[in-house]
């Protein structure tokens, strides 16, 4: 790994009753290195994202981002440090249009409250239109997000995170709910946008084709542990990964 360590999870442990969702998880996330997290359902992948973004507090261990301990910080504080998140189910402002969603994010980023300036007239408008262009959503800029198909809602959700100009972006199943025929197209758009914005991404994904195509590194999760970690070609051809995660006969 060539990039500097952007985020480091050290000895993370968390359990929900009898279910161990993180059992001594240690992992470094390197700048410029897109990491895919794979594993069966219930392996602890989303829990890891929830801990790293402040939604859950681990029972033991710590998370360091950019040299700062963020283990006990709230999602809001972690976001302000440069960590953004896109959700499995797009988390959008349903009474607003796609552009308005991004303008709200831009105003949040720049702490631009401006009580007597209309949202649509803030200086970040052009920048947000460019971002919508990057995710191929310019045509739906003025449509309420509640009317958009799932694929576009996913893209707007990711654009919303990118509007914050984060250093690190967590994406939880960015192609779930998207038609199989559109998955690669959606991820191509996202990958291009991430590269242009120079954002390091960590994404949870079940589709191995997507992982092969977009990840620089893969971490295999099961029962709250990282079983394997390495380059996609090496990891995805490992017999145990093929049997336990991909679900094919070796």
């Amino acid at each position, binding site marked *: 790994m060539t990039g500097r360590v952007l985020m480091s999870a050290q000895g993370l442990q968390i359990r929900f009753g009898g279910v161990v969702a993180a059992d001594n998880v240690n992992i470094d996330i390197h700048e410029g290195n897109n990491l895919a997290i794979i594993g069966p359902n219930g392996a602890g992948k989303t829990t890891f994202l929830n801990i790293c973004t402040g939604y859950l507090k681990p029972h033991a261990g710590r998370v360091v981002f950019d040299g700062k301990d963020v283990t006990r910080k709230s999602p809001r504080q972690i976001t302000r440090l440069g960590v953004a998140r896109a959700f499995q189910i797009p988390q959008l*402002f349903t*009474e607003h249009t796609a552009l308005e969603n991004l*303008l709200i994010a831009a105003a949040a980023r720049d702490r631009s409250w401006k*009580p*007597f300036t209309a949202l649509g007239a803030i200086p970040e408008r052009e920048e947000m239109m460019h971002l919508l262009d990057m995710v191929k959503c310019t045509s739906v800029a003025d449509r309420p997000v509640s009317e958009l198909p799932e694929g576009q809602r996913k893209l707007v959700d990711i654009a919303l995170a990118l509007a*914050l100009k984060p250093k690190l972006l967590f994406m939880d199943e960015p192609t779930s709910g998207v038609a199989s025929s559109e998955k690669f197209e959606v991820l191509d758009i996202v990958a291009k946008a991430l590269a242009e914005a120079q954002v390091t991404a960590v994404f949870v994904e079940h589709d191995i084709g997507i992982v092969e195509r977009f990840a620089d590194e893969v971490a295999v999760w099961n029962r709250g542990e990282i079983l394997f970690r390495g380059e996609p070609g090496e990891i995805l051809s490992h017999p145990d990964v093929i049997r336990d995660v991909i679900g094919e006969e070796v």
Partner: protein
Amino acid sequence: MALRKIIPVLLVALVAALPLLAPFTQVMLTLALAKGLAVLGIIVLLHAGQVSFGHALFFAVAAYTAAFVGKSFAGGELVAMMVAGTLVAAVTGLFVGLFVVRYRHIFFGMLNLAFSMIFFSFLEKFYHITGGSDGLQVLRPSVLGIEMERTGFEMLLFYGSLVICLAAGWATWAFLRSPIGNMMQTIKTNEIRLEYLGVSARATLLAGYVVSAALCGLGGVLMAVAQGIVTPEYAWWIRSGEFVFIAILGGANSVAGAFVGSLVYEIVRTYAAAFAADVWQMVLGVFLLAIILFASDGLVGMYNALMDRLGGKGGMRTDDAREAAE
């Protein structure tokens, strides 16, 4: 489109002319405008999806502040009373808001109610300070140092209130369209995402809460000066309910609805009480029931629907309707 804009202007002109054409309506209209300001405060919170059943607290706090200013300074000065009342209401809003913005929906509404009832009890029990259930008299204040006769003062109060309502209405409309106003709206639709944008939902709601309290306070001062007396009834829960009632009647998503609702409510209340003294509450109740069942966007929503029909539109998108309502 022109008609849609001309009619509101004509309505404002009609309200402005009414006291000249029918002087007996002047006090009623002043009271309606004062309540309209308080309802505007409710509308600000409804924008964030929260309903307060205790905003009479700020109405009363400001009204009593005005009364104390009047008592302390030989009748008082109208501008000083308005500034002091509004400021005290805003500061009270800040302190109460620190508690209530931690809660949502029914808990938010009931906690507001609890605070207002605590203040109501204070007003009732601390007789030596507040005058108890008799309240405090509010003497006619001077205006920028000029002592005025009753008739002239009441006319000035009405037109002053009208100007204040127009200014406050515009400022609130601009606030709700601004970045922070839109962030307040997202508390209703996706508070978690707002936090994941690095914004404190509580701080955002608190900002709106203080604005809302200040508007209520301004309305309370105007009401106190217009009536010449303040009583604990200003903080009574029925008063808070009245504000919410008027907000729904006028149109919960609309700044204009606060004043339209308030004017209609005050007119219906006054004349229903005069001509059907025993059943006027029933008249209002049936009126509200009809609004909720058949026109959930209130009177302003009905007006927009009518304009759409006249303009040949089959229907409006929600955001268009909202913009038109504003």
